[in-house]
């Protein structure tokens, strides 16, 4: 990791502090907030995957919600049809991983091919959750149609331990993501985002890498959905919808794209604020989100994390390196002698000056 030993030490220290907070927090926070935060932690995991796809790879993807939804419904359907038990849990887990991987690979094959444009990839990522939701609607009692699935038995864990599980899971995902993104892989993905043509020119198979990243992030998003449904014991088509997908993007945009921390900040803030404000002022809250999105895109492309970083730089007096001024060469006398200069290519004289 860049930065050497002190940076690594402060990173580990930060992670330990965060983990400690997660373990200790349920004792201090009230039950409603704990409930909200558990859900928010799972959503934040999905938001991290969106950040990896969008902030690091440069693909504006509305489709990560589809993979989240697959995880949600895999668990819900297995537990509804077959009840709750050890083999059912493993089956649901296996189904989540298998189905998300297949759908992601298919989506990736459709979106990323030599000559595809980022716009086309976004379009395909738009279509996937819509198709999935329609499939859910037409599933009858198997998928619960528009009402979703409720009342299935799920893991028996008390609220505080769910909080610790979800929080530590989020920290684990974030740490892995940060380590990977700060390594050469992260550089490769940034290169893909910034100049795809040059990467292809250098012999890197950009389509295959993008498909691989999509599949891996889809697996994580699916697992996040699995956890979400395991805690909430509810599966609704909204969990897989295009609207949820755009909500994830808004979270990443507001928090700060291209920084894993931004995704977490955005997801947690919006989930918590939504829970508290949408009861009292539903329309105004959505309005605020819309305005905030526009403001972020226009004025603060780096989101909250970007603003925070700028403030920190301003406070500590850090200034961007100024261009070094080259000293002008000392003026010498002009050359006083010239030799005859001639250049010939077979019969052609290209330069000749005396």
């Amino acid at each position: 990791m860049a930065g050497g030993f002190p940076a690594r030490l402060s990173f580990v220290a930060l992670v330990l502090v965060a983990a400690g907070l997660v373990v200790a927090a349920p004792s201090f926070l009230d039950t409603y907030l704990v409930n909200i935060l558990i859900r928010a932690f799972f959503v934040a995991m999905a938001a991290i995957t969106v950040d990896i796809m969008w902030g690091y790879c440069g693909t504006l993807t509305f489709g990560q919600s589809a993979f989240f939804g697959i995880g949600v419904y895999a668990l819900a359907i297995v537990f509804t049809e077959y009840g709750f038990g050890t083999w059912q849990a493993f089956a649901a887990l296996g189904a989540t991983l298998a189905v998300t991987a297949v759908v992601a690979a298919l989506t990736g094959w459709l979106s990323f091919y030599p000559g595809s444009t980022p716009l086309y990839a976004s379009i395909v990522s738009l279509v996937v959750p819509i198709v999935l939701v329609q499939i859910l609607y037409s599933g009858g009692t198997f998928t619960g149609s528009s009402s979703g699935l409720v009342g299935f038995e799920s893991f028996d864990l008390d609220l505080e331990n769910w909080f610790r599980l979800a929080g530590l899971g989020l920290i684990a995902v974030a740490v892995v993501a940060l380590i990977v993104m700060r390594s050469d892989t992260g550089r490769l993905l940034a290169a893909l985002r910034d100049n795809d043509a040059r990467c292809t020119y250098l012999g890197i198979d950009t389509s295959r890498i993008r498909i691989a990243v999509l599949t891996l992030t889809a697996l994580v998003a699916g697992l996040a959905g699995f956890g979400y449904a395991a805690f909430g014991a509810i599966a609704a088509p909204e969990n897989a919808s295009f609207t949820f997908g755009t909500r994830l993007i808004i979270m990443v945009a507001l928090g700060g794209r291209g920084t894993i921390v931004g995704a977490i900040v955005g997801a947690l803030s919006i989930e918590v604020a939504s829970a508290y404000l949408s009861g009292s002022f539903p329309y105004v809250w959505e309005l605020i989100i819309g305005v905030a999105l526009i403001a972020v895109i226009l004025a603060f492309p780096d989101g909250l994390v970007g603003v925070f970083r700028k403030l920190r730089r301003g406070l500590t007096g850090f200034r961007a390196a100024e261009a070094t001024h080259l000293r002008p060469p000392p003026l010498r006398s002009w050359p006083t002698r010239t030799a005859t200069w001639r250049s010939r290519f077979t019969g052609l004289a290209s330069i000749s000056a005396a």
Partner: protein
Amino acid sequence: MLTVVLDAVTTAALLFIISSGLLIVFGVMKIINFAHAAFLTVGGYAALVGAQLGLPWVLVLPLAFIAGGICGALSEAIIVRRLYQRPLDAILATWGLGIVIGQLITLAFGREVQFVQAPITGTVAFAGLDYSAYRLVMVAAAVIVAVVFTGLLSGTRLGLSTRAVIMNEMLAQGLGVNSARVRLATFAVGSGLAALSGALITPLSSVDPNMGLPWLISAFMLVMVSGGSLLALAVSCLVLGGCQVIVSTFVNPILGGLTIAILAAVVLRVRPKGFARA
């Protein structure tokens, strides 16, 4: 059988009117306006207001167009203008704009579904069966829209400047075309068209703050497949709209709603130019 054909043609006409505004914006500015659904809703509510004020339909349609045009002009000046170099960000910003407009409409008019009386009710005897007169009027409206806009593009100076900007903006600017004004006019006209189409479709279903959303995805896919030309848009509306009607009628209405999106994605994968001439 004839009912299916007529359904297909009228659905295609409806899709054409809705997508034409998006196409014009995409063709000139190369950005997708995700607020299109919101402008459609603006037009729907303009029609509602007009109907409540008792205005004749002949006045309601221009009212909707102007309402949409004003919203579009304001959006372009405040938001879209700064995002021409960043098309993906423009998608997000216009989506945010769509949310804002939708919420403002909800705050002003409430969330419930409302209805507008159709100006032409009843059926018409057409080639042996009774078909909804209003749907047939859609076809006429689509043809009028196509004719008017082709006329504007080829017959007026603004149209000439627009075509120049579509072909090569930098060159057009170099030749003295005020591309900023062209973009403003285009966005305003595109939004006006969206509002007009919203006003036209309200008698067919209803008016609610989210009425535009289902149409947005279909319109978006149709515009992508048509690749920028109005004629190609008409063709794609007929082909894809026809497929949608066939699937809805013979297979499953839910799958029918998906046909346009899926077919368009597949067509684009196979032939990135879509239905446009090579």
